[in-house]
């Protein structure tokens, strides 16, 4: 009997010791920001041709949060709860604390079954057993002797036991949450203040797991020489934290990014108990394999993604809210004029620009190289314009996907999809929209004499209207190409044969290649 009565006394001493240490430093918590600004940057390694993968967003964001915090006098830990889970802690900037920052900390541990057990090592917990037969519940005190990786050994007054290896329903429960475990991602700052005060503090940090791009919807007129262009800013947040009523910006251009240091584990979530021997022991040859690593952060998010805008419908009416472009050094900043909610695991779209009657040309291009075979192949359809006011553009175009429709039957018809990189004002814009269905190109070698080979290039058009066609000679120098009659131009330093192929007709070019080697 003496045992039972003395254990709680000892435990009370421990609790008192813990309490004393926790009191040494005041803690001021801030549950969330009162206003927040999110600037989304693109994945630096994703080209315009590749769409965003909502389950694996490799862009990032600059998050600036304004919080009002009551700061106690003396030394205190200010805890910023609910920061983005993808926070890069070393990028955090805290301004507005009256007497500055002593140090900034990100404690990796989140409150979870595994971290709770880990933090309770050597501490008194409670063990509850329930009889399956009678429902009777017995509770007793226990001390966790080890908890590493879920291999739990408990000490009770009877001796030492493994947790839940016997097949009996048993569980441990705790008196309190250790003070340094938080439910949400948290950054803390140690500060020293002369007097208790209420301060407005700004916390800025970079966080991974965001991305954005432009999405252009172009509708070609029946004559095929003008498009109505509409564009979305499409931004995605793959983080577990959402930002309500956020001043939201996106940045185009390519800021340099260095690789981030490996992220520290956050204390695991799930608790997988390692038990051996467990259940029937005679048929177990080996201990069970170690628990598999927790699933990657993004896994399973796809089903949760909420798309908050549809593509086609809004394009007709003038968008009531449109992102406004500003200069930011050598980058372009797009500001969404009203605060919006950038929810966790969601994609959001806001109008970026709207231009009607943009002058375009459609032409076809093939690249001819000496080492290709003589199979006929399809030319590439290209939509071309120049980013100038004369053409109806003349504004920076951030990279993104392009969807081309033609509206000649009273309903839009998808012609194809392409992409465009960042285009400054004045640049040529060429968008490859798939292969032409009926424009074939064939280069046939007709004769070889010594080191000179003769070729015949034929392009055929099955359309009832003439089309422009460019053949670009790659890997062939002008000096070794003999052109009889046809006049070759140049594009990017390469010989270019530019012709109009008649309706339902064909054109040919005879040329010779001289092999210098």
């Amino acid at each position, binding site marked *: 009997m003496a045992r039972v009565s003395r254990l709680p006394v000892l435990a009370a001493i421990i609790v008192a010791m813990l309490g004393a240490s926790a009191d040494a430093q005041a803690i001021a918590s801030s549950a969330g920001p009162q206003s927040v600004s999110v600037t989304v940057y693109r994945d630096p390694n994703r080209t315009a041709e590749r769409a965003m993968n909502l389950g694996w967003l490799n862009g990032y964001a600059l998050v600036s949060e304004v919080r009002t915090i009551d700061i106690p006098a003396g030394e205190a830990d200010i805890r910023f709860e609910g920061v983005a889970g993808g926070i890069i802690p070393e990028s955090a900037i805290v301004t507005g604390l009256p007497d500055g920052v002593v140090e900034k900390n990100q*404690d*990796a541990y989140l409150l979870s079954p595994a971290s709770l057990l880990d933090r309770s090592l050597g501490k008194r917990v409670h063990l509850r057993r329930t009889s399956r037969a009678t429902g009777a519940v017995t509770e007793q005190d226990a001390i966790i002797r080890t908890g590493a990786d879920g*291999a739990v*050994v408990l000490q009770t007054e009877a001796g030492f036991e493994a947790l839940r290896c016997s097949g009996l329903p048993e569980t441990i429960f705790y008196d309190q949450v250790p003070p340094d475990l938080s439910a949400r991602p948290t950054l803390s700052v140690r500060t020293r203040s002369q007097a208790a005060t209420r301060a407005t503090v700004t916390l800025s940090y970079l966080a991974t797991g965001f991305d954005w791009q432009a999405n252009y919807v172009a509708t070609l007129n029946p004559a095929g020489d003008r498009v109505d262009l509409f564009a979305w800013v499409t931004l995605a947040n793959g983080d577990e934290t959402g930002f309500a009523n956020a001043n939201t910006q996106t940045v185009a251009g390519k800021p340099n990014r260095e690789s981030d240091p490996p992220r520290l584990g956050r204390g695991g979530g799930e608790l997988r108990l390692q038990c051996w021997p467990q259940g029937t022991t005679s048929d177990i040859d080996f201990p069970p394999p170690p628990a598999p690593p927790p699933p990657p952060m993004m896994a399973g998010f796809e089903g949760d993604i909420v798309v908050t805008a549809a593509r086609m419908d809004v394009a007709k009416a003038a968008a009531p809210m449109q992102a406004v472009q500003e200069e930011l*050094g050598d980058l*372009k900043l797009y500001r969404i004029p009203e605060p919006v909610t950038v929810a966790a695991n969601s994609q959001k779209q806001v109008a970026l620009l709207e231009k009607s009657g943009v002058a375009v040309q459609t032409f076809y291009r093939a690249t001819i190289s000496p080492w290709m075979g003589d199979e006929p192949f399809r030319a590439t359809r290209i939509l071309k314009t120049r980013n100038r006011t004369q053409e109806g553009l003349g504004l920076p175009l951030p990279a993104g996907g392009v969807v081309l429709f033609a509206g000649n039957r009273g309903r839009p018809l998808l012609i194809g999809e392409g992409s465009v990189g960042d285009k400054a004002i004045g640049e040529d814009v060429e968008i490859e929209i798939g292969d032409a269905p009926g424009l074939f190109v064939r280069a046939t070698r007709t004769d070889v004499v010594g080191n000179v080979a003769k070729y015949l290039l034929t392009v055929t058009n099955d359309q009832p209207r003439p089309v422009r066609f460019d053949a670009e000679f790659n890997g062939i120098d002008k000096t070794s190409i003999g052109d009889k009659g046809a006049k070759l131009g140049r594009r990017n330093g390469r010989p270019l044969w530019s012709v109009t192929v008649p309706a339902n007709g064909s054109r040919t070019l005879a040329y010779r290649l001289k092999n210098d080697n």
Partner: protein
Amino acid sequence: MRHLLLASALLASPALAQTSQGDVAVTIYNDNLALVQDTRQLAIGAQRSRIEFPDVSGQIRPETVTLSGEGLGIVEQNFDFDLLSPQKLMEKAVGQQVTLVRTNPANGAETRERATVLAVNGGVVLRIGDRIEVLRDDSLPVRVIFDKVPENLRARPTLSVTVESERSGTRPVRLSYLTPGLGWKADYVTLFDEKAGRIDVQGWITLTNTTGTTFSNADTLLVAGQVQQQNQDYSRGYRPPRPNNIRKPGTESADRERLGDFYLYPLKERTTIANQQTKQVSFLDVVGAPGRKAYEYDNAWLGTMDEAQSANTVLKFSTSKDQGLGDALPAGIVRVYMRDARGNAQFIGENSIGHTPMGSELGLKTGEAFDVKVQPAVEKRERLSPSKWRTSMRYTLTNARPEAVTVDLVQSGLDFYWDDTRIVSESMKSERRSSDETQWHVPVPANGSATVTAVFETRF
């Protein structure tokens, strides 16, 4: 009663409530290496005794441990990493007695009996009285209660040292060892005011602790510089070295504590470095140092790009006393911010720096310019003789910004590591920086373009 005594000892030990560490001093190097000195007040009896050191780094390199204390001689030193787990507990119980608690599934009644563990090979073979039984072979719930935990099974890796002492009594004992898992780097926050040509720079020391152990109230000293290490552990993944971005190394000495070649950064006050924590402490704050922006483009070989390529935006500044930050900079990442139209700081890019002596010129690529582009194109390539080629290059530079810019245009890949290349002619005079590179400073008018042409004679 024996159990109770054990439990009391356990509970009374501050190790498990808080930490057994004493006065801790940590010296942290950049490359995932730290020297820990831990001075503990220990009561040591006369003659031979064993001292345990819980709460040492979980990644301690035991071969680097030294222990010193007044009148102490070391007999032997052990590092026990046999961790306590249900399986280990059972394995170590072979030949010993345990208590079995059987629960009747029908009525919940418990019966207890003593058993001897005969073998733990794939299953547990027990002797109960005169029966031999396999544990839980009938799939009925049986709890196994062990009398004790074997001595060398521990919750955490533990160092123990057997010492011989001339006298008994409490005295300070200093334990020092090397451990990986502690490292640091610098992080710089740079606010660039382009119009004023000024930068504000704050430097932060970023510590990370992945040792598995918290170092409480530690006197912390950081050493900037690479320390030669043998047998480096690449299990955490090989990381290619980052560029140091030093354009011209400096020759000035910073007003900081030094040890040999290394700069030392002591933290002003003691701090607790928690396990799995990222901690930042300020060490540099400079306001209004000169900084300017430049555009650079490097065409790596005599080749054509299909589309115009953005020029690099480069932030240039100095670390000299007169015209710069006036300090040596430990290696780290420089993040650059600019104010947007509303005055909010926005991120415009980052880059790494190496350990940078004071007086150095730095050039950091912060990003690629949206509006300033270069398109290199091979205009003509002729073969003059079997070992002589002539290549005509045209570089088209465009600027969509409302102000004129100058682009430092570099053509590299000229000597191809072994052959000579001659510039036959060029539309503007270039500066041959090396046999491999030549550079033009090309002014490009506002909302305009410029063209540079050059003819190279190469041997390939």
